[in-house]
């Protein structure tokens, strides 16, 4: 059963040009961004006060900013930070969501009811406020940041996973396995997990752009990534401050942030359609 599902999905995915484009862009981006330090000479911190606000040239492909720093290196560095935070926070949210959701679905009954009620109520709250409050109280810790960000996104994942677990619990092959005396733990490992993996991957792909966006949001406001580190959010903020003098300082980080968000969304949508073609399409 699992083999057929994946190959079918892959075929469908391949037909989705936008998703493929997104995937290609992301692969390229990750490769360039994370391998770049091996090649580039100009550091992201190096200031050159004689070359401030210069437009793109051969030396500085993306130009320089208000302190004469090479924008290309800064965009690459900021990209690494943003992508890493995005991925780590999404993994945190996936972890919390999967554990909560599978527990709720597996336990069922009243416990499940209560747990999902809590999720319903939490859904209405804008978590960003909680993150801000956490940042205010506990300082701008890098680890705290992506844990907090991860906690803003686990709700959807929990719902999805719980739904999957509930529907799988009652499927015949689980009952068959159970009646054969296979222990509960084995059932979970061998049956439940492979079948929930699909939706988890899909929503993971869709969580990453939300988290990257939130990090950028916080950093833009000065509450996220702090100097000397940089992320796309801080770079965009710096760019906005001087955009009348040097529009490229806004353009390049904004472009990469947007393109990454687009690609992740296309890919995530594509994965979701590939795995569940019955889902309502726009």
């Amino acid at each position, binding site marked *: 059963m699992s083999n057929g599902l994946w190959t079918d999905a892959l075929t469908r995915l391949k037909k989705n040009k936008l998703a493929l484009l997104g995937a290609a862009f992301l692969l390229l981006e990750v490769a360039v961004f994370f391998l770049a330090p091996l090649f580039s000479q100009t550091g992201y911190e190096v200031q050159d006060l004689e070359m401030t606000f210069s437009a793109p040239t051969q030396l500085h492909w993306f130009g320089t900013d208000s302190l004469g720093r090479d924008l290309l290196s800064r965009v690459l560095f900021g990209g690494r930070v943003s992508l890493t935070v995005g991925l780590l926070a999404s993994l945190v949210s996936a972890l919390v969501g999967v554990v909560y959701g599978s527990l709720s679905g597996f336990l069922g009954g009243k416990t499940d009811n209560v747990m999902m*009620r809590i999720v319903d*109520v939490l859904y*209405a*709250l*804008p978590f*960003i*406020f909680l993150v*801000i*409050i956490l*940042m*205010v*109280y506990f300082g701008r810790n890098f680890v705290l940041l992506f844990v907090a960000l991860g906690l803003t996104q686990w709700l959807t994942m929990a719902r999805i996973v719980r739904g999957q677990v509930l529907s799988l619990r009652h499927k015949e092959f689980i009952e068959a396995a159970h009646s054969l005396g296979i222990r509960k733990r084995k059932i979970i490992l061998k049956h439940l997990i492979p079948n929930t993996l699909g939706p988890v991957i899909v929503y993971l792909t869709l969580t990453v*752009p939300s988290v990257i*966006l939130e990090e*950028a*949001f916080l950093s*833009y*406001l*000065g*509450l996220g990534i702090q100097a000397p580190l940089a992320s796309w*959010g801080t770079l*965009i*903020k710096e*760019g*906005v401050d001087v*955009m*009348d003098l040097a*529009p490229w300082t*806004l353009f390049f980080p*904004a472009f990469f*942030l*947007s393109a990454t*968000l*687009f690609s992740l*969304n296309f890919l995530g949508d594509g994965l979701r359609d590939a795995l569940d073609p019955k889902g*309502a399409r*726009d």
Partner: protein
Amino acid sequence: MGFQYLFKRLAIMVPIFFLVVTLVFFMIRFAPGGPFSSEKSVSPAILKNLEAKYHMDEPLVSQYIRYWKDLLRGDLGPSFKHANRTVNEIIQESLPVSVELGLLALAWAVIIGVSAGALAALKPNTVYDYVPMAFSLLGICLPTFVVGPVLVLVFGLWLQWLPVAGWESWQDRVLPSLTLGFAYAAYISRLTRGGLIEIRGQEFIRTARSKGLTESQILIKHSLRGGLLPVVSYLGPALAGIITGALVTETIFNIPGLGRFFIESAVNRDYTVVMGTSLLYFTLIFLCNFLVDLVYAILDPRLKYV
């Protein structure tokens, strides 16, 4: 008879509110660097305010009750950073500005969103569909703090049609509200399109046509009511989003709204302002969601009997 489920929702909110207020109380009391902690890093004037306000010599329980009493009177306490200002004053000055910004943004979102979505639904898979939906994709993916500066760059600096910051004349209000509303216009246009397309595929539309109604009559009387339901239920999250989006928008456009003060307070670690404002925001969001549920129940007659 049927509004029972609404009351159920309300009933859950009460203990939650209770919990939240209790949390807020403790967080203010145990704020690092505050008068209750070991390292008092607040200025003496503020310390005086806080002691007068919270009666720190009293036992914890009476402090808590006192906090509730103040809260129910609408008093949120003094600022942590500004000795002669209270949280209430700050809110009173800046909330109206934010409300205006939020309502304008919502207006843009609904007007642009529903029109674009309706147009796309009436002529699906044509250019009238592809173009608005492409724009809506932009709106959904591009963050407010990218859209805002881009609009400012194009309309403010290059074309010089609209002012870039401030909140004085009516022109000042255009760019910020448009920036804030753009993303929600995008979502609403997609929801409208989807909802209308689904409704128009239903049989009762064919019945209406067989009775001799014109296409516009069919659209307005028969399609909109059901087709807009997804938009109505989206308004709850949309409002929450507008509130958070205002934080950035007010910062970009230098608007003296509650959002901007909130961010400043967060950066400056003004605990009472941060917590008090958050409490206000949460209450607002709960109320708005409840209102939306109410409207939805009125619009969908089938729910009245659930």
